[in-house]
């Protein structure tokens, strides 16, 4: 029987195995040394690899992102552990003007093997400085890979690909998923970027669900199945590159598309998927493409307000019903 481990353990296992294989990998972050990370992302690794490879930093996000950019240019493979992904905002200049552009500006003679990981998402009254996701911004910029695993199996397999590649990778871990358990094989495996997962097969509507929304949409699909309604669910797994072909094939079958995303709608992932489906699959559509997003607002603290800014099982169900009624 296959073992079950948590999402965080799966990702940490990938990191530990790759660090054992490749001495040029090192991790930087606040409290990722002897303490093992606020979210246990590096637990136990300091004892194995010491301070050069598990490097606690001062609180200088711009500084250590810029530093890791230079490190990646010269032959090492940094992993930046932001703890909360919100903290990446202080390093945008380095990331957008430097990290993402070095391979291009050097006409491919420099590589940029850097993994930027952190916990995203709304929940637990984390309020507005510990709830951000921001991934659409990175999808907009040429040069980044944007990866958002939604289960332990994908977390390990996608992290392996991130650590073995030569591109800057945003590795985003939704806080509601960190302690979720799932089957993860002990043998080595990796999952290529740009391959969506069909989480559930169905015939009447396609729902593309991002991050923590996958589990909520699965529940909605079960409810609808009991009414005889068949929903197909797609988890893109990586947003850059985006596997639009799998989405198009699904829409060809179902004729209807809803994109469910916790974060903001304007210029978001749903907008992009919608545009591409309109450009490449317009004739397959039996209804307008719909989006369900969190509210376009900073994240409030009070549980009553916090719950109001994210999609929930009821709004998801209603959106699917609306789509089917079109």
């Amino acid at each position, binding site marked *: 029987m296959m073992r079950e481990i948590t999402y965080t353990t799966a990702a940490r296992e990938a990191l530990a195995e790759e660090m054992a294989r490749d*001495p*040029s990998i*090192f991790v930087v972050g606040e409290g990722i040394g002897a303490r093992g990370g606020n979210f246990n992302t590096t637990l136990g690794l300091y004892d194995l690899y010491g301070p*050069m*490879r598990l*490097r606690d*930093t*001062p609180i*200088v996000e*711009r*500084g*250590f*992102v*810029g*530093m*890791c*950019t*230079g*490190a*990646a*240019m*010269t*032959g*090492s493979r*940094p992993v930046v552990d932001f703890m909360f992904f919100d903290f990446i905002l202080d390093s945008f*200049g*380095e990331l957008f*003007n*430097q990290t993402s552009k*070095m*391979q*291009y*500006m*050097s*006409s*491919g*003679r*420099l*590589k*940029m093997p850097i993994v930027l990981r952190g916990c995203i998402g709304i929940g637990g009254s984390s309020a507005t400085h510990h709830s951000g996701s921001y991934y659409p911004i990175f999808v907009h910029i*040429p*040069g980044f*890979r944007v990866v958002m695993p939604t289960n332990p199996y994908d977390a390990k397999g996608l992290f392996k690909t991130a650590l073995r*590649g*030569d*591109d800057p990778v945003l590795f985003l871990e939704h806080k509601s998923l960190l302690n979720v358990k799932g089957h993860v094989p002990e043998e080595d495996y990796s999952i290529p970027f740009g391959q969506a997962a069909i989480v559930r097969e169905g015939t009447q509507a396609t729902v593309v669900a991002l991050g923590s929304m996958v589990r909520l949409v699965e529940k909605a699909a079960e409810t609808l199945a009991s009414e005889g309604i068949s929903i197909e669910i797609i988890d893109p797994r990586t947003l850059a590159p985006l596997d639009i072909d799998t989405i198009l094939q699904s829409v060809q079958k179902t004729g209807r598309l809803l994109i469910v995303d916790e974060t903001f709608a304007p210029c978001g992932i749903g907008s992009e998927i919608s545009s591409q489906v309109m450009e490449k699959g317009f004739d397959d559509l039996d209804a307008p493409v719909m989006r369900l997003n969190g509210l376009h607002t900073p994240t409030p603290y009070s549980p009553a307000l916090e719950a109001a800014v994210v999609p929930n099982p009821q709004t998801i169900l209603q959106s699917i019903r609306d789509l089917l009624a079109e």
Partner: protein
Amino acid sequence: MPDEVTKEHALTLWRQMLMIRRTEEQLAKSYAGGMIPGACHTYVGEEAVATGVCANLNHEDAVFSTHRGHGHALAKGVPPREVVAELFGRVTGCSRGRGGSMHLFSPEVGMMGTSGIVGPCILQATGAGYTFKLLNKPNVGVAFFGDGAMNNGAFHEGLNLAAIWDLPVIFVCEDNMYATEVPFAYATKNQDVAARARTYGMPGYSLDGNDVLAVYEAANEAVQRARSGGGPSLLHCKTYRTRPHAEGMRDAGYRTTEEVESWRQRDPIVTLRDKLLTENIAEEGDFEEIESEIKAIVEDAAEFAKNSPYPDPATAAEHIYSV
């Protein structure tokens, strides 16, 4: 300054400075002639800094530079042909026409980029130092930056990180007194840059940046210390650009012609030549020989650039990702 200056060493440095000067003069001429489609920030007047520092480096050492970086690229070993061709936007340029003046890349010789943004080079050189320490390589990261970077957060963050982890990094502040047109004296209450280095816990050198021998000696000490595990250093090199911030720009309203003239009198190339002649270390003929050699190299570079093709437009989106 060393007690004894050998002829070979001094002429090598003089030759490098002259190579930068003549290449820059060629670029200024080419800019005026419409051959350079983008910006062109020359290094005229500051040649002693890049020359004195880079003479201590090899191709495995990593240099991270500024918007005024032609001199750094040339001193690090990028051939003049590739620098001129890059500014002409040709495929034979060191960045294959993707960069121009402010994005000169040649990782093959450890030239890790000039940059259009002030500050990041300080952090990236720190990162190079991290790699070298992690992988036990005897190399150094070098950041060149102007006085304009001194009050940027990257300076504070980079120096502190390099200091707390004893990284092999050389921070070279080229203080030419103006951040474009804003005087360093206006922007900075404490202008003792070497003292700032010491507050981060690293040695700071206050240097005449127009004295190539002094820069060489200080850099030599700093590089040796870094290579042997002694951590980072900062060199504060006081110098001056005698041409406008960028070619084609009005050079008035922020400095006087008298000031520019006074620094022309301290030209690093003339100064070293006079010294070597006065002290009978070299003869007129030595300099004439180098002059004519460099003249031929730079003329060839311009001719090469002019005759080189532009990049294929079909390649405009290549190399964004590694695969």
